[in-house]
């Protein structure tokens, strides 16, 4: 029975339409002999079908994206009203995303297989409209190369003033796929043998962390072709005290904490990166407590001068991803710690909202705890069933 075949006898599937027909009938005529309460003389009116919520094209800075990595990306209001979940975006294996402030779009880089967990693999970027969250475009990434690594910073990045997306590939050969987001097409692929992850640098290009301890910087032309490569001196001692790959921008400079507690600033604004002098997060006084950076998204910055780092005492080999008990706040110009925040719950990922009065967001197990900068808990959102790692990206 196809959609256009007439629907004759009651025994046929017309039965399925009882609901609609009666609906029209009842709603139109308001058939109702139920005894009406004196205080409510009129029944509630019929409601619209269909009705789908929409969002403002530009989100308030009290909202944040939460990437459940391999499950979904949630858009939540962390700023206080009662409807905390604003929407979800589908996100599968190691999905990562970019949210521009130049266009009312969201980009999710994802991977699916034609039969669920097997079959033909497809890597693709879905373009969502911020107002409707409807998919409005798709860019298929060739070669099934996209790095399937727990979602984190460095797997995807903007460059060229958000016109281009850079997708890190790992097969286990390393490369970067360059995508034109405005034309919605792939421009090309840049091999970065022995190096991992992508961080925006310069006007059009990226930098990547290499196994030799250096940072390789690649410049691109408008068509995504490589116009230059420069490699920094080695500054990342992988054997003794490697840098986390999580970083944050403070005053235009990118700060990488190290497993043992140094902080490494790198100025990536120019066409060549400037590796600035590192400095200790842990003073001699703290040495006894064995305090070290610890967690997943371990560092956040207020973009002006303050640096926030998740810190854990009695740290030792293998604890570098454990949830951390405190957040230490540093003044980057003076390179001094100005605050210690004891967390209500040990946290694994932190970020700061981008509003005039930033909120500190801390993923702690199945909770997203929201603190005011002073360190007092404002609210705690539940993350039901969350058991992996979270990437927090507040709305800009």
């Amino acid at each position, binding site marked *: 029975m196809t959609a256009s075949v007439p629907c004759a006898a009651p025994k046929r599937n017309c039965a399925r339409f009882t609901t609609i027909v009666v609906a029209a009938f009842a709603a139109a005529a308001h058939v109702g002999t139920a005894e009406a309460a004196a205080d409510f003389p009129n029944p509630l009116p019929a409601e619209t079908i269909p009705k789908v*919520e929409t969002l403002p094209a530009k989100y308030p800075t009290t909202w944040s994206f939460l990437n459940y990595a391999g499950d979904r990306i949630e858009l939540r209001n962390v700023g206080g009203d009662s409807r905390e979940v604003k929407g979800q975006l589908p996100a599968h294996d190691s999905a990562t995303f970019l949210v521009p402030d130049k266009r009312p779009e969201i980009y999710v880089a994802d991977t699916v297989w034609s039969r669920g967990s097997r079959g033909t693999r497809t890597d693709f970027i879905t373009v969502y409209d911020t107002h409707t969250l409807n998919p409005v475009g798709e860019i298929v990434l060739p070669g099934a190369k996209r790095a399937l690594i727990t979602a984190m910073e460095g797997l995807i990045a903007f460059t060229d003033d958000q016109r281009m997306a850079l997708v890190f590939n790992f097969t286990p050969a390393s490369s970067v796929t360059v995508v034109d987001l405005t034309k919605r097409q792939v421009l090309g692929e840049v091999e970065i043998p022995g190096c991992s992850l992508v961080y925006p640098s310069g006007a059009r290009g990226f930098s990547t962390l290499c196994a030799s301890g250096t940072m390789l910087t690649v410049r691109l032309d408008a068509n995504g072709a490589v116009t230059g490569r420069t490699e920094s001196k080695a500054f990342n001692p992988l054997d003794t005290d490697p840098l986390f790959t999580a970083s944050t921008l403070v005053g235009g400079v990118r700060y990488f904490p190290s497993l043992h507690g140094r902080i490494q600033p790198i100025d990536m604004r120019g066409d060549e990166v400037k590796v600035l002098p590192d400095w200790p997060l842990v003073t001699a006084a703290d040495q006894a407590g064995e305090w070290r950076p610890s967690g997943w998204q371990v560092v956040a910055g207020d973009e002006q001068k303050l640096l926030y780092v998740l810190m854990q005492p009695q740290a030792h080999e293998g604890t570098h991803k454990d949830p951390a008990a405190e957040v230490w706040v540093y003044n980057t110009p003076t390179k001094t710690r100005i605050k210690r925040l004891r967390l209500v719950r040990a946290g694994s990922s932190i970020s700061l909202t981008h509003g005039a009065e930033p909120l500190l967001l801390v993923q702690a197990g199945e909770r997203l705890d929201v603190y005011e900068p002073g360190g007092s808990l404002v609210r705690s959102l539940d993350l039901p069933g969350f058991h992996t790692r979270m990437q927090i990206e507040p709305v800009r």
Partner: protein
Amino acid sequence: MAQFDHLAEKVLRGFASRTSRRSMFSVLGGFLAGAAALPLLPVERAGAAEPNSSTDPNSGQTAPQGSGNPQDPGDPTKCDYWRYCAIDGSLCACYGGSANSCPPGTEMSPITWIGTCRNPADRRNYIISYNDCCGGVAWGRCPCQNNQGDRPVVRPQNNNEVTWCFGTKSQSYTCSTAIILGVAIDQK
């Protein structure tokens, strides 16, 4: 439900038997256009206005939602909300939708099944349409299973196990709504 189902049958015979499915869609369309003109409940607007600062900051709970209308009492994010007397699935109000709307990025199925729920405030029985939202992310938050008036799938229009995603781009289930269609016939 019995009497109501009889009505359904009657309406059906007098109506559907002379109608192709396609034209039924258009009738539905007509009805929708009409209904759209009716005033809407300020359900989620009101909800959005309520601060939850009053709640324990450490509770992990969402502050209660509500229509703000005493004639439509209860919290649409909770399974005991009166309209949910026959719902089976995840509550859209927990996903960025509301009791009667789908979350952004999903599509509401025009074809669905209906139940009858009693409004504790005005003590009227309302015909509730349980429209599923389709094509989005389903992850089992706010599961809710009430079976008042649910019947085995032999009578699909009264069954809540069916994924009611028909006439939508994707038939993948996301969550369920409970929409007032009108007042039911007196069941006395």
